[in-house]
């Protein structure tokens, strides 16, 4: 028979990691989306990660780095998803593993997020509008092209340039803060 005290402790550990998950969701999600760029695959991985984090709550040692622990689980879920989908036009399993090994630290992810918000405001309104349509409204390139009076190819080029501009801006922001 299960000891009621053990049950209470297990429940408490689960609630604790679930709260931590919500608190650090942005960093975990950034990690997942970088390894699993497709939005809906990333959603699946986040969901599976949350389930596993909850199930393995008792193996998390309070006081240690929760984001690193959760990202370790997320990495395995990305690989599971990768094996299930078996697509030919995505990164190889070895590449995903290599990327996960070299993942930025949780601290760097937080700094990147802060710098990104400042950098977004420096973009031209038209470019911000494209990013908003793509990432907030989740429109396809075709839908964005119709709305913005551009070709789909021009939309893709503009998005690529916007990401590169943001990356360069973030790097300079982080460097100047150091």
């Amino acid at each position, binding site marked *: 028979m299960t000891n009621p005290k053990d049950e209470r402790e297990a429940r408490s550990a689960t609630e604790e990691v*679930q709260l931590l*998950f*919500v608190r650090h*969701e942005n960093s975990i*999600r950034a*990690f997942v*989306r*970088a*390894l699993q*760029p*497709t939005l*809906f695959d990333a*959603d*699946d991985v*986040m*969901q599976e990660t*949350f*389930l596993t984090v909850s*199930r393995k709550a008792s193996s998390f040692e309070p006081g240690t780095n929760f984001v690193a622990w959760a990202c370790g689980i997320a990495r395995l879920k990305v690989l599971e998803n990768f094996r*299930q989908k*078996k697509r*030919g*036009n*995505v*990164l*190889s399993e*070895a*590449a995903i593993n*290599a*990327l996960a090994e*070299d*993942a*930025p630290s949780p601290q760097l*992810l937080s700094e*990147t*997020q802060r710098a*990104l*918000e400042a950098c*977004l*405001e420096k973009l031209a*309104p038209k470019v*911000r*509008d494209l*990013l*908003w349509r793509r*990432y*907030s*409204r*989740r429109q*396809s*390139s075709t839908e964005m092209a119709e709305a913005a009076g551009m070709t789909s190819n021009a939309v*893709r080029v503009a*998005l*690529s340039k916007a*990401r*590169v501009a*943001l*990356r360069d801006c*973030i*790097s300079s922001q982080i460097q100047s803060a150091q």
Partner: protein
Amino acid sequence: MMKEKDTNSELDALINACLDGRLSEAEADRLSQWIEESSEARQRYWQLASVHGMIEQSMQSASLKAATGEEFVTPVKTVDRFRWSRISSTAAGILIGIFGASMVWAYTVPRVDPAQRESREILIESFEDPEMKFPRRFPTNANRWFGGMRSVPGQGGMPAVEGARVGQFANVPQHRFSDVRYIVDFDEYGEPSDKHTRSIEVSGSFFSPDLDHTSVFRIDVAAFSEAPEAVQPVWIDREHFNDVVLQRVGRNYRPEPGDQATWHEVKVSMEIPRGARSLVVSLSAGKRVPGGASSDRYLDAVRVNLVDTFVPVD
């Protein structure tokens, strides 16, 4: 110096294509190799991919909303757009939806008697990915949709059943039916024990705005002993098809004049014979009679459940 700049530009282009899901297989191989071999490439990937991974959350900042001049629109994947996904049947199910920038979850009711009936949701599809590709041919492999369909936003008169987008069947005037197909590979789910029978339950919601009720919707499931890649030749060989198919069930739904222009859910279930390797799931919409009126027809909330039921031995 120029060479390094060119190399970085090429790498950036590949990473951007990867983030947009538009790498070719050759490009995926090249980028993978680059990442595996070069720590600089990995660092460059992370710098660009972090931006991709973080923009969504940042887009919700008030300053950005003001700058774009748009009213704040909750990111599409919100209150009315929670998405169901694969959830392990053995776990206490937890459903997560994205709710603004945070996550909400709910616990599903534990199964009443798992020893008697174990149901696994092996596919839930609500066509939420606007970039979803549907090769227009019979499926040549498992775990992917094929056929005449595209993902479109739900409209005011046709809100999505789940999420915010739906699948729209191709409207080809000279064709009576359009369909999408998906192959389930039973090898991925293990054999049921001798004391269990296995069945499949498929459901999908169909919609057509036509008011003269000229549409017919159909779900068809067929089991084969062949591996997924080998089903196509069997499927197109109509002369021998009935000798080869292990089991097949189909169901038509015809909206009647009294029906509203609303979503119609169609369900099919079928016992899976032992030895079945592949299951072809077909969902079709078309004209009730050849040459009938063309109309837009939609599909949403497709679910496939694998059910193992305990059968006591006398």
